[in-house]
């Protein structure tokens, strides 16, 4: 069977390390939110690569996941990301009408709009966003992502203070 074997020693040391530096590590982790982004490989992911090559900076808490099309994103992925620790999630794809697969992002729009409505019913609307970013819009990508990051960070710090 393919069971990953982790030596006992390493586990303990890992736990110890966490306890030693726990305070500092936790503080930075609390202040900096993590955002999971599902990016269409033909548009938004290309835009993020372009942002990289243009030396534009976007927050490092934003973790991008490349998907073949934004409609590949089952809302289950978004729900899983949020309930397993992410502070927010976004789904990003090509502008409506520009889909590489002709009509994929129209389905995305319906699915994510419905998911947003559901998040609204659970009073956590701010955790999910839907962006349209084409491959040429590196600046727009950085702006959108940074805005979302700052918004979530602000809300998180406020909650922490209260």
């Amino acid at each position, binding site marked *: 069977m393919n*069971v*990953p074997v*982790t030596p006992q020693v390493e*586990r303990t040391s*890992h736990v110890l390390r966490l306890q030693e530096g726990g305070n500092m590590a936790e503080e930075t982790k609390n202040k900096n939110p993590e955002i999971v982004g599902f990016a269409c490989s033909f548009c938004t992911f290309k835009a993020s690569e372009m942002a990289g090559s243009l030396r534009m900076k976007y927050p490092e808490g934003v973790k991008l996941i490349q998907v073949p099309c934004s409609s590949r994103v*089952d*809302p*289950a992925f978004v*729900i*899983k990301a949020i*309930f*397993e*620790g992410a502070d927010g999630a*976004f789904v990003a794809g090509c502008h*409506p*009408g520009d889909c590489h697969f002709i*009509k994929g992002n*129209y*389905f995305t*729009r*319906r*699915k*994510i*709009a*419905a*998911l*947003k*409505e*559901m998040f609204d*019913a*659970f*009073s*956590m609307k701010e955790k999910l*966003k*839907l*962006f*349209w970013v084409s491959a040429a819009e590196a600046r727009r990508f950085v702006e*959108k992502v940074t805005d*979302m990051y700052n918004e979530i960070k602000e809300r998180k710090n406020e909650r922490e203070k209260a």
Partner: protein
Amino acid sequence: MKGKKLKPGHIENALNQFLKEEQHLVLGFQKGENGVSHQIFKGSIDHYSLLNPTFGANAALYLRRLFSKGSQVMLMLRPCEIRAYVELHKLTQIEREDIIAVSIDCPGTVSSKEKKDDVPTEVDQLTEYFKNPDSMRWACSVCSEKRGVLGDAGIRIDKAGNFWIIPYTEKGEPLLSLVEGEPEEVPAEMLMGETKKAEKFQVDMATFDKDFEKCIMCMNCRDMCPVCYCIDCVFHGDEYLPKGDALLNKIFRTGSTKMPQGKELFHLIRMYHVSQTCVGCGACEEACPQGIPLTKYFKGISERLQGMFAYMSGRSFDEPIPYITFLEDELKEAED
């Protein structure tokens, strides 16, 4: 609209004539010693009952993967069961050709979990008993579609308590011809009218956590849901709900976890997956051993999400399920 007034014994005679053919079946209710239950009749009808005062399960569950070859099945069921059948047809789980669906006006039902001795089994007493919304289970008391106006034919109750059989499609006509009597004009007003819509569902995660505190993740709600039909559910395997080694590895990675873990994951993902097809029958709550108010969440969410696309689950065969279709110019407010 033309229909026939049903006198006692008429419907039984008609169904018996229908069952004379070898390949014909009827799915309906039977009166037994310990109450009324679902029954598939073959050959002849005995102890037939039009209405069933206890909910039990949604009978559309038994129809999944029904591709009857040459046989004819007549469904004599509640509106919520016929609506689930319509949704399952749209999800290509049932072939419609060999099914005659007859929806029967439903005065309401009680939960099979509560042992209520005062519930009558006679059809005419039932409408009287369920006049009070508190006497039925919660899902039925908020049900907005108790009228038998779906499927190929309907059985309606008029204000005087008479039963009427009304065909809606060509497939319903033969059933009408089996019933004795001459077609008459049907009264315009029936006992069950249209009911008002409930207000928008709104909760927060704290309430959710409180309500689902008792959940033991037995997944009976998924198994008894008539429209939760995937053979290979996403919760099989270790991706969403890890077990054994996968679970321990995850805990080494992320830290202490309360067990059973993944309640929000399971219920929210399921809530989303059935959002457009949920008929609000309350079979999940009926199946829950812990008495969690599941209908409140599932019905509330599905009403909100169906409202976005002006869709109603099970209303018609011609409306496609919103997630598999689109309009080019819509939902501008959804993008950020």
